[in-house]
């Protein structure tokens, strides 16, 4: 079974932090991940969330300014954090995911860097 999503989803969170990917039938709240980044969930400060599903079924989630990419496994009524991959302490600048099954390519366009990500880890190209 191949769960790979051909193109990443780019979604602006709602006022309450809800992320809804209608096309792929996914709905969750970004605030827990935002907390991981900023330790603050009083307001939604995440601008655009970028997410993509890999061939194995894991979701890869990040956003502009985030330092990490979050690898999430789908479970009943929730996404469970599998791995938190630190990319840049300064924060990703204009990140983007490209599907390159069997891995996911992460672009850090601010620094012109690309990475290969799987649920097991990361490798810079």
């Amino acid at each position, binding site marked *: 079974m191949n769960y790979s999503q*051909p*193109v*990443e989803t*780019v979604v602006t969170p709602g006022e309450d932090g809800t992320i809804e990917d209608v096309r792929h039938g996914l709905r969750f709240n970004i605030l827990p991940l935002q907390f991981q980044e900023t330790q603050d969930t009083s307001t939604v400060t995440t601008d655009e969330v*970028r997410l993509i599903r890999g061939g194995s079924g894991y979701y890869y989630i990040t956003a502009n300014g985030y330092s990490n990419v979050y690898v999430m496994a789908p479970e009943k009524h929730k996404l469970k954090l599998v791995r938190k991959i630190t990319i840049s302490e300064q924060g990703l600048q204009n990140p*983007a*995911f*490209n*599907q390159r099954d069997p891995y996911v*390519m992460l*672009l850090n*366009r601010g620094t*012109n860097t*690309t990475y290969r990500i799987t649920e097991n880890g990361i490798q810079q190209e």
Partner: protein
Amino acid sequence: MRYLANQYIRNKWIAGVMMLTFALTVAGAVQAQEQPQSDYEIQENFRNQIETLQQQVETVSTSQEADSIRQRIASLETHYADHESLINRALYPETYREKITQLKKRISTTHKRLARIEQQDETLKQLTIRLNNYSKRLIRLDNRTDSLKIAVSESKKTGDELQQELEYYRQQLEQRDQLILSFIDSVVITYQNLGIDSMPDIENRLSKSRLSSGENPLQMIRSIPAESIQLLDSEESLAPEEYLRMKTVHQEYAAMWNKVGHKLTEVYSVNPSQVESEVQQSINRWEKALNDKLWAAMLASFRRADIDIRSFENADAFYEALETYVEQGLAASRKDSGRKSYEQYARFADFWNDRVKGEWIDKMIRTDLITNARLVTIDRKTSDWASVAKPESNLFAYLLGMSVLAIAVLGFLLFREKSGSGSKKKTS
């Protein structure tokens, strides 16, 4: 020397800077090309450009713009060809190829439609120029005709000169009718060829010209019936042939209006249904005025030829009057085929052959005032009348009488001679 050296160094330095700039630019471009692009942005850009082009196709208003859009579509196709697979996955179930093809088809159809409308616009412009020329010529002719009419009515010239003026006047009238017929042909040819689906576009483009009477062909078209009625009302004594010629013009005009009147009012009028109704009423009034004059002129012609035919005011009455006259003449000749009835026949036959058939009948048939069948019937009855009306020859009676007289004289002479010779014998 030092100056030259400085110049050389300076030039070399400028060249070096330029080379470096170029190299950096190329390197930047290469690097930009080598840096992976975001798949999301690629497909988003494609979607956005497709949407923009679709909107442009909807609102394009000239064939030149359509050409430009066509080129942009080709450019889009080339630019995203390498990403077809990605775009297909992003657009599923639609595909990159479908989107491009659909866009190309639409712009092609739109381009053809716009080119056709522009061509028709141009044709309309040319027609409007021609119609304006017709209008000017018609006005000049009308003025000349009016002047001539006044001149003829007030003329103190001699018979020959007056005749010449009258002839010239009639020629002007004929020219006017020819001009109107040519104009009608132009209108029909041009407007009939305009496709119905293009009318709303042309209507939109010409909306300004509805109010510009100087360039509005409908104005001229509307004026023709009114001016023709005016001409008829002002004219007392035209010959039937001339009224018949005008009938032809009326018929062509009515046919033209039937074919293209609705389109013309839609394009050139702010109140199409009202204008259409007005023109139709003008056509009807024109026909009535023309018919009244025509039948009166024909009746007058018969009467002047000493043919006391029953009066008529329409085509059926005309035929019935003719038929009755011929049948009555035929009956009278059967009863008494004397000189009087023969002369009556001769007058009618001459008029029928020379005037009616020689000068009127073609136009009467063309304008549905008489049918071929009716023409044949009158011809046949006239022939029957001819065979009855011809007076019998008295020659035989004269010869018989003379023969009897000759025989009587000879008999008398013979008797006398016999009597004379008998007496001589007795006395000897």
